[in-house]
């Protein structure tokens, strides 16, 4: 099927030695450029791939998710659609069931409320309900996240909501390199994939990104398999599991903690469905301490899920657990309140320190 991650980029001929030198990649891209490059590549290869959404044509996507695609592919394949999410996301479901490979964009994930039936009762269930006689090879792209004071209807991530509902794969890139490889995989996948890109990571001119997401990106196509978490920083003392924007906040916290002699391992989940619990469990077996950091609501969500999946299997490995997430309130507008509820670098660092102090606990 698809190519795999290009560690040693070789011709796939004789699989003799795998210790060939990795190819050096020198070109840095923003996350949005990387994502668009994968879409353009797939559209050139397969004319059944097309993109639908609001303001995706002339505007290039409010968050640059389709920047430059109109010029190459025209309005027939980069389609501006009416503000009718139920109709066009449902149309993507139908076209996918006809065998096409549509990509539909929901401008902000917060707008899912007006079209959730098509997403959940159709897109996510048709494969199963049909006994897999039908498949839905589409991608639903959507912008997520806060940190710029856009308030309760435009700042959520809803990672847990989408991951909770069976039948769709859920992808959350945190770097340009991951964004490209995951997008190739998403378009080629025969199942519906929800591709959630964090606005703050895209590298948009008017919303400055942190340093991390802009990375070297190979020119050629490559895929990153779903269900493979990435250890973004190795460490011995505490396992920090996170995704999206908070990968970068966790890395910053880890750098601070290192000054105090605490060695944190940072795991980027990259996909929530399928979920790579093995990488997390192995790390916890090594560190004994788990901190899960999420920009979604605290209860019934990603943090609880990760902790449960470790506890079920490796309860004995767990010396201490903490979670850091949005404290079950809608996202407030005003700066002091938004800063309070979205986990900060300091919140992550504090949780790591606190989980370590549970070490020689009461028992």
């Amino acid at each position, binding site marked *: 099927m698809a190519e795999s991650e290009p560690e040693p980029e070789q011709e796939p001929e004789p699989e003799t030695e795998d210790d060939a030198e990795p190819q050096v990649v020198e070109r840095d891209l923003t996350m949005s450029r990387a994502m668009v490059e994968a879409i353009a590549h797939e559209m050139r290869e397969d004319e059944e791939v097309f993109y639908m959404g*609001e*303001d995706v044509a002339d505007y290039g996507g409010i968050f640059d998710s389709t920047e430059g695609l109109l010029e190459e592919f025209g309005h027939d394949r980069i389609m*501006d659609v009416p503000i009718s999410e139920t*109709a066009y996301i449902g149309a993507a479901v139908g076209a996918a069931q006809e065998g096409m490979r549509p990509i539909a964009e929901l401008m902000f994930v917060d*707008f899912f409320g007006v079209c959730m039936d098509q997403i959940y009762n159709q897109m996510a269930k048709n494969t199963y309900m049909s006994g897999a006689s039908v498949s839905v090879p589409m991608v639903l792209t959507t912008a997520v996240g806060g940190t710029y*004071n856009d*308030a309760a209807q435009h700042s959520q991530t809803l990672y847990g909501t989408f991951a909770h509902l069976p039948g769709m794969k859920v992808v959350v890139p945190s770097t340009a390199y991951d964004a490209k490889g995951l997008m190739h995989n998403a378009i080629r996948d025969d199942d519906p994939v929800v591709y959630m890109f964090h606005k703050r990571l895209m590298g948009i*001119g008017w919303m*400055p990104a942190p340093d991390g997401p802009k990375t070297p990106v190979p020119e050629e196509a490559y895929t990153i398999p779903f269900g493979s978490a990435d250890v973004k920083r190795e460490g011995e003392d505490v396992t920090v599991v996170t995704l999206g924007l908070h990968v970068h906040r966790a890395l910053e916290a880890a750098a601070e903690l290192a000054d105090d002699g605490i060695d944190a391992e940072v795991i980027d989940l990259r996909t929530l469905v399928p979920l790579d619990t093995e990488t997390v469990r192995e790390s916890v077996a090594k560190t004994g301490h788990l901190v899960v950091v999420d920009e979604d609501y605290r209860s019934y969500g990603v943090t609880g899920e990760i902790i449960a999946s470790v506890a079920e299997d490796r309860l004995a490995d767990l010396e201490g657990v903490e979670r850091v997430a949005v404290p079950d309130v809608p996202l407030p507008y005003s700066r002091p309140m938004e800063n309070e509820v979205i986990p900060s670098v300091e919140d992550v660092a504090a949780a790591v320190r606190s989980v370590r102090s549970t070490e020689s606990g009461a028992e």
Partner: protein
Amino acid sequence: MGGVTELQAMFEDMVTARYYEERLQEEYLEGKQPAFDISAGPIPGELHLAAGQEAAAAGVCRHLRDDDTVTAPHRPHHVAIAKGVDLKRMTAEIFGRETGLCGGKGGHMHLFDPDAGFACSGIIAEGCPPAVGAGLAASKRNEDSVAVAFLGEGAISQGGFLESLNLAAVRELPVVFVIEDNDWAISMPKERVSDVADGSRRAEGFDMPGTRVDSDDAIAVSDAAKEAIGRARDRNGPSLLEVQVHRRMGHFMGDPQTYRPEADQEAAADRDSIERLAAELRRRGVEDETLESIREDAHERVDEAIEWAKDQPEPSPEDAYEDVFANPPSGVTDEEPAYDLGTDARAGAESGGDD
């Protein structure tokens, strides 16, 4: 039509809204130059301004009372001002202050002023169903208040709008839907997303009166709104009204508008409904000085509101945890009464019977 006093009142609402947004724009850009960073400055987040759309709000709200309900979309300021929302507290909300309408939780797209019967929502067309609900409440209680839902022309293909038309029609509810047609939905020109140039024709399919006012002439809007609102108040059912307005600015602050032909931007700038109404007032014998003093008073009120707002304290971080639910709770107790439901006896009997 209305007398000169009424027209002057509309003029006042319109110049207030225009100047208000000019001032907000200045404040918003502070800290966002030279590089525009949406999260910087005294007003962060998105900001959608309504310059060029004032006639629709003023012409409609002229016929509304405090006990009438208005829902507005993401571009709400001109409507809020015309509906009589508290200017100071609205401004404080936009600046994210503790004494703002919503204590800093809502921001510019989510302004709530129950005293003025005003609310807005940033999700396209989703103000329509609650407006129907306000009409339903009035109808059930035999009150003669009405509800008005404002929406953009981009919203007329959304289920929330079309379903609301139908519900209001079958229940004959006192609701007026007002489409502000500014030709654009962000970067999408209306002909790209709807085959019908006149949005008021959506009413036909629901057997509801539909009218389009083809210019942003505040007097024509007021005349059409008077009829529609009167119909609702007299319990003769809902109506749909579309008003041609103009978007003099980008969709939101920071919008480069590269998608928009320059001629279209110039045309919008040339058509000024405020100047048009001023000319009509002069024609009817209102002195320039009178118009000037209306303007000056409006500017003073706006400047005062902005100064007041900027002096207000910010909320404390912990305030974020308040208000998820109504507080204090009313009508609930924290004690469960004790009843003997005979549960133990029954459970015993069942298990006995089964075995």
